């Protein structure tokens, strides 16, 4: 990375952290009781939750990862952008409203409604923790790499820059979640979404300024990008498909994981419990889709722009694919703008890890502790929240350690892709069937969650993304095999067993999920 002498980036980081700590301080006073702590008292409005969903979703993999992917693979990278937005139709059409109407705090609430609660919650909680951990470790590794490159002088004595950055991000995340709960997490995500959107708009405008605001000139520059491939210098048209994925099945498999994975991501799903009713859940998806769509269309400008204005060789020499967006900001703007974009990337990571931590700790406390171990009764008032706080602390400490052990070289996009595939294969079949299929039962849910979870993880381990010398599975993403397996497991498990109680309670779930009758409303203040 070219030298930058001033400390503007550091000041901006500190300003953002200070702002979020103020948010946490005021949230902490209001995070009393389960509903307040886990669901922000269900008083978040539609546009606020829409911004927060967008903030939760556009992770380091989106801002840094996709910009880099487009800068290196052109059109094939842009396919990620498309999948990330269209996936919200699955959320809007099938999941958001029934979930809000029939659930309380976690994804498993909907499953537990008419199935045997203890086994289903235990497995759903395991799946939530798995998805969240993969996602979180990826973000932490990204954060460590980013901060240690952006603030080269930053380190705690006795530790490397990477480890110190991971620890700092981890501690901040624990503070937000342990003290501020869902309310603080929500506002951190809203702040981040606004910062990210404005940073991306500015960056896109600066790119187009280089091309005199002419789309013709911009797209023409993409038809001949020069870079050094594995076999020497290459010139390629970056608007053409096939630069990254030679096998069409790779693209289809990735598409499946993206389209069906979002509706199974626990940290996105629990956001719909923070609003007063299903109608607000709906409007928050609309807000999120507007923001997310605009953002991913802008990846055209700063992704392709990085390819054309910097070139893959320059980016590789100055910090690698994940640094494409910040490097572009440095080239086009002042140092202050570079510092701003870096702070935005940092804020992005912090907000996402906070969202992941609260989804993991809510699931552990509500599903596993209260409902599996204590049969749905709290031993003492406030116990559930207390367990969640302790879990958040443990989850944070664990992911700090894992990220430090894995080190800065680990591939971030690989872990996030895995999280999407696991979510689509394990969680989505169980959620969709329990809402829409009367015959569905506990055995089906267990089989679906189990096969989905197991097959996606095993396939990733034996794929080219795994560490095997000779991959047994040819595709980078397991979605095309593991998602049908998850659905198939759920169907077979259901058909092999009979559970009259589950079927008899379908009427209740149908009425609740379609009308909102009996759903918990916002808390009074």
């Amino acid at each position, binding site marked *: 990375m070219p030298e930058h002498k001033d400390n503007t980036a550091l000041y901006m980081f500190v300003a953002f952290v200070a702002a979020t700590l103020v948010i946490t301080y005021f949230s*902490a006073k209001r*995070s*009393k*009781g*389960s509903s*307040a702590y886990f669901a922000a008292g269900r008083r978040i409005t539609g546009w606020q939750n829409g911004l927060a969903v967008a903030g939760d979703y556009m992770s380091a993999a989106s801002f840094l990862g996709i910009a880099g992917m487009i800068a290196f693979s052109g*059109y094939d990278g842009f*396919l990620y952008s*498309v*999948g990330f*937005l*269209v996936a*919200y*139709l*699955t959320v*809007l*059409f099938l999941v958001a409203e029934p979930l809000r109407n029939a659930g309380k705090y976690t994804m498993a609430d909907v499953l537990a*409604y008419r199935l045997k609660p203890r086994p289903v919650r235990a497995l759903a909680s395991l799946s939530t923790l798995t998805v969240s951990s993969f996602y979180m470790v990826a973000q932490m590794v990204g954060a460590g790499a980013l901060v240690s490159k952006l603030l080269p002088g930053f380190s705690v004595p006795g530790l490397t820059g990477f480890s110190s950055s991971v620890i700092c991000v981890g501690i901040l995340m624990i503070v937000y979640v342990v003290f501020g709960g869902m309310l603080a997490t929500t506002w951190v995500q809203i702040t981040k979404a606004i910062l990210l959107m404005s940073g991306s708009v500015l960056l896109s405008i600066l790119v187009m300024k280089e091309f005199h605001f002419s*789309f*013709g000139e911009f*797209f023409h520059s*993409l038809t001949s990008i020069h870079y050094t491939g594995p076999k020497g210098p290459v010139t390629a048209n970056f*608007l*053409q*498909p096939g630069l990254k994925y030679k096998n*069409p099945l790779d*693209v*289809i498999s*990735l*598409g499946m994981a993206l*389209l069906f994975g979002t509706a199974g991501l626990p940290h996105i799903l629990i956001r719909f419990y923070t609003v007063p009713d299903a*109608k607000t859940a*709906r*409007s928050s*998806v*609309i807000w999120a*889709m*507007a923001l997310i769509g605009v953002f991913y*269309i802008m990846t055209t400008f700063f992704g392709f722009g990085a390819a054309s204005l910097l070139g893959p060789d320059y980016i590789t020499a100055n910090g690698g694919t994940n640094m494409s967006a910040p490097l572009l900001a440095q080239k086009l703007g002042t140092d202050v703008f570079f510092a701003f974009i870096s702070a935005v990337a940092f804020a992005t990571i912090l907000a996402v890890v906070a969202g992941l931590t609260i989804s993991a700790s809510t699931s552990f406390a509500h599903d596993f*502790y*209260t409902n599996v171990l204590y049969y*749905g*009764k*709290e*031993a*003492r*008032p*406030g116990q*559930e929240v*207390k*367990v969640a706080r302790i879990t958040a602390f443990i989850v944070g400490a664990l992911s700090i350690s894992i990220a430090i052990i894995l080190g800065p070289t680990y591939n971030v996009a690989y872990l996030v892709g895995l999280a999407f595939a696991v979510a689509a294969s394990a969680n989505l079949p169980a959620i969709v069937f329990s809402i829409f299929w009367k015959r569905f039962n506990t055995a089906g849910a267990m089989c679906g969650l189990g096969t989905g979870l197991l097959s996606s993880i095993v396939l990733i381990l034996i794929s080219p993304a795994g560490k095997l010398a000779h991959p047994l599975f040819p595709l980078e993403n397991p979605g095309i095999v593991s998602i049908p397996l998850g659905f198939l497991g759920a169907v077979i498990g259901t058909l092999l067993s009979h559970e009259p109680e589950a079927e008899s309670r379908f*009427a*209740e779930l*149908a*009425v*609740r999920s*379609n*009308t909102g*009758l009996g759903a918990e*409303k916002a808390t009074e203040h």
Partner: protein
Amino acid sequence: MDSPNLEDLTPVVGAQTDVAPLGRDHSKPAHELTAAEEAGRTDWEAIAAMEEFKQLLSTKARFIIPGTIFFVVYYFALPVLVGYFRPLMETKVIGDVNLAYLFALSQFAMAWILAALYVKAAAGWDKKVADLLSKISKR
């Protein structure tokens, strides 16, 4: 699991919770009832059998099922066309912009239009739900 010696991080100890603590004897607010306690209070079967409710479900299905099939097919047309019909997709349409990029861009428009149609349809469902609920509360 229970660790009574740990400092409770809850700012106000003994805060209200919506999960029933053991041994509480007074009646709980409606939203705290567990599913089992609530089972006898509302006749879900009767509501599910109401003509209005059945109508609501079929109206929703008439929109959601074709809508879902449409966006899944439209979305997967992109990787299939890009993967197996590459020469066609590389046809330049406007200046240097090819069919592949325009089709990808059309996915954004498709998602927004479908979302807008959903909101419009859902406004009608909300009315049906409100009618249904007022009818139930009258009984």
